[in-house]
């Protein structure tokens, strides 16, 4: 067991830190969160800088244009960029972390050549069309239909929880191509151009009052068959393949951020007197221990993934605990700041946002099912 960097890792970290130190001060001011074109421009400019410096797709295989870094180096990348306060992956999220890796694994040479380089350079933005109003936890119940018509699919239906839809060039879309097959067997993966006729984007206001997500309405949208990844009706497997790209690094930046938040909260508590309350002090300390351990769990999972080539089963365990710890953090913050928690300020915004943590990317209930059935081998109920 070793937690310190290898020589190569230390070198990678040092160079990255140097580059960040030089580059970050040159960045323009971050755009207003409501200014979608401004956000796209900001995020893609950052991606272009990463690309020029050789840090685009750190974790992508070299033959897909990435750096081919080890999982440990990828983790260092995430840790250092977060510690340095570098921009969040933002609009590049789906392209870099989901659609891109899927195409790298499952795409034809033509698809890879056409679609991957613009992701790495920050030229093209992707969004994700998976969830539907009727298909959330039960994603495979999706009903958006695609009917083959010559060289095209004609797609009709709707999607929800699509981030960056307003400024995306492409959508990785899951559609049902065989309504008669068992639900996992009739799904197909398509790369849909967002400017295709019939695509309507409607911003979706969240409980925080912001519009981070959109709904997509698809009305006989024609998508070339050439945009299909993998075989027809094989889209479920194609999509799941990408999850095995995940090398324990999901949420790594967020853990680093939460550890900073706990320290910040302690500072606020010291300043406003809440620190004198033994209960609040101990609860803050408990969370500090929890996030410290969660960071170690990230390192453990990354090491496992690096050694075994596949991510360990630790992902669901991590997700379960991390989601709850983050919500606990912002509930605690509300008690620390007192009546300020009733104002729409910094801590409250985080608290509202945090309400999604036990829901998005697999509810805590689903995570527990996974842990119980796939890790512990408990039987499915009747």
């Amino acid at each position, binding site marked *: 067991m070793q937690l310190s960097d290898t020589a190569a890792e230390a070198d990678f970290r040092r160079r990255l830190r140097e580059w960040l130190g030089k580059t970050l001060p040159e960045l323009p001011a971050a755009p207003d969160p409501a200014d979608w074109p401004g956000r796209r421009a900001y995020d893609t400019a950052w991606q272009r800088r990463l690309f020029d410096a050789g840090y685009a797709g750190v974790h992508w295989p070299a033959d897909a244009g990435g750096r081919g870094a080890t999982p440990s180096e990828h983790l260092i990348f995430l840790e250092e960029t977060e510690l340095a306060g570098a921009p969040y992956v933002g609009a590049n999220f789906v392209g870099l972390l989901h659609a891109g890796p899927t195409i790298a694994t499952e795409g034809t040479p033509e698809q890879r050549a056409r679609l991957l380089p613009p992701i790495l350079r920050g030229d093209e933005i992707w969004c994700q069309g998976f*969830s539907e*109003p*009727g298909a*959330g*936890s*039960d994603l495979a*119940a999706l009903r958006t239909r695609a009917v083959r018509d010559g060289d095209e699919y004609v797609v009709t239906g709707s999607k*929800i*929880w699509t981030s960056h839809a307003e400024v995306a060039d492409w959508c990785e879309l899951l559609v049902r191509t065989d309504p008669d097959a068992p639900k996992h067997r009739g799904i197909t993966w398509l790369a849909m151009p967002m400017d295709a006729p019939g695509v309507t984007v409607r911003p*979706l*206001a*969240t*409980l925080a*009052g912001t519009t981070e997500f959109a709904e997509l309405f698809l009305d006989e949208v024609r998508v070339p068959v050439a945009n299909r990844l993998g075989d027809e009706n094989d889209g479920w497997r194609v999509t799941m393949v990408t999850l095995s790209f995940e090398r324990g690094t999901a949420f790594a930046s967020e853990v680093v951020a939460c550890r900073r938040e706990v320290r910040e909260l302690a500072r606020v508590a010291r300043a*406003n*007197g*809440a620190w004198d*309350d033994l209960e609040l002090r101990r609860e803050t300390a408990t969370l500090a221990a929890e996030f410290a351990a969660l960071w170690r769990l990230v390192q453990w999972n990354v090491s496992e993934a690096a050694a075994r080539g596949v991510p360990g089963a630790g992902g669901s365990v991590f997700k379960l605990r991390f989601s709850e710890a983050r919500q606990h953090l912002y509930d605690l913050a*509300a008690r*620390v*700041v*007192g*009546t*300020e*928690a*009733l*104002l*729409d*300020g910094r801590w*409250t915004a985080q608290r*509202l946002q945090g*309400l*999604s943590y*036990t*829901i*998005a990317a697999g*509810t*805590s*209930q689903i995570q*527990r099912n996974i842990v119980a059935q796939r890790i512990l081998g408990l039987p499915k109920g009747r």
Partner: protein
Amino acid sequence: MHFRLTDDQEQLRRALRELLADREASWAELTEVGLFSLRVPEDAGGLGLGLPEAVVAFEEAGRAVLPGPLVGTELAAAVLGLTGRAEVVRVPARGPVLVPDLPTLEHVLLLHADDALAVLPAAGLDATPVPAVDPDRPLWRLEGVLPLGEQSPQAHRVADEATLLTAALQAGLAARTVAEAVAYARTREQFGQPIGAFQAVQHLCADMLARAELARVAVYAAAVDGDEAEIVGAKLLADDAAVHGARDCLQVHGGMGFTWEARVHRLLKRAWAWEQAGADRGRCLDVLAGRL
């Protein structure tokens, strides 16, 4: 002992539930049905009822997530003999002094930590509007030096009864969260069955109900008994039932609950707001510990 609603109390509850069922009642309507004059003596134009009736009524108001200065207006009339809208504002242990709905108020009943009460004309207050997280409960921050208050039996009554009526609001809100969660769980299908058929969802809802029921009974008992320890205990249980319930209600709603449109978030935001009205958790626990 006959610890259940009397027929009159049942009738009051039914009338209010009907009035508040599908729409938001106007302030005039609430006044008309006597929400604020329940406890005003009959010879002063009120209904001459007691704290138990007020609590039953405020439970319904909480269930309907009514906006507006409910608690203060009732207390101003019942305890202080003042007419017009009023709100009780406690000087918090931490954070700014916030007054909800300030421009609509005639009186602000400012309670200090020691229960000293200052009855202030709302019009003259130095206050700044601030962005509130609950969209139906706009807030103003009091600026400058806070006026001193006076301790008195009346002030203590305002303090205790503000806590109790707020607990009643929370108990009603908690019951609402159960109803909304259950209604959604019965109709929303995933994996080929209503999500309410999954044991995980059932147990979440069962715990929600248990919290709501215990809080409700505690609030009723505190209204009948009037003891400070029962009141603060009821407030603790009602806050927990409302906040935890609203949180779980969102979880049951999944992604849908995260939309503005679904309005589930209003339950949580209101529960947070009412949690900070009346005696705070630290004070409630101190009172209880002091009795042991």
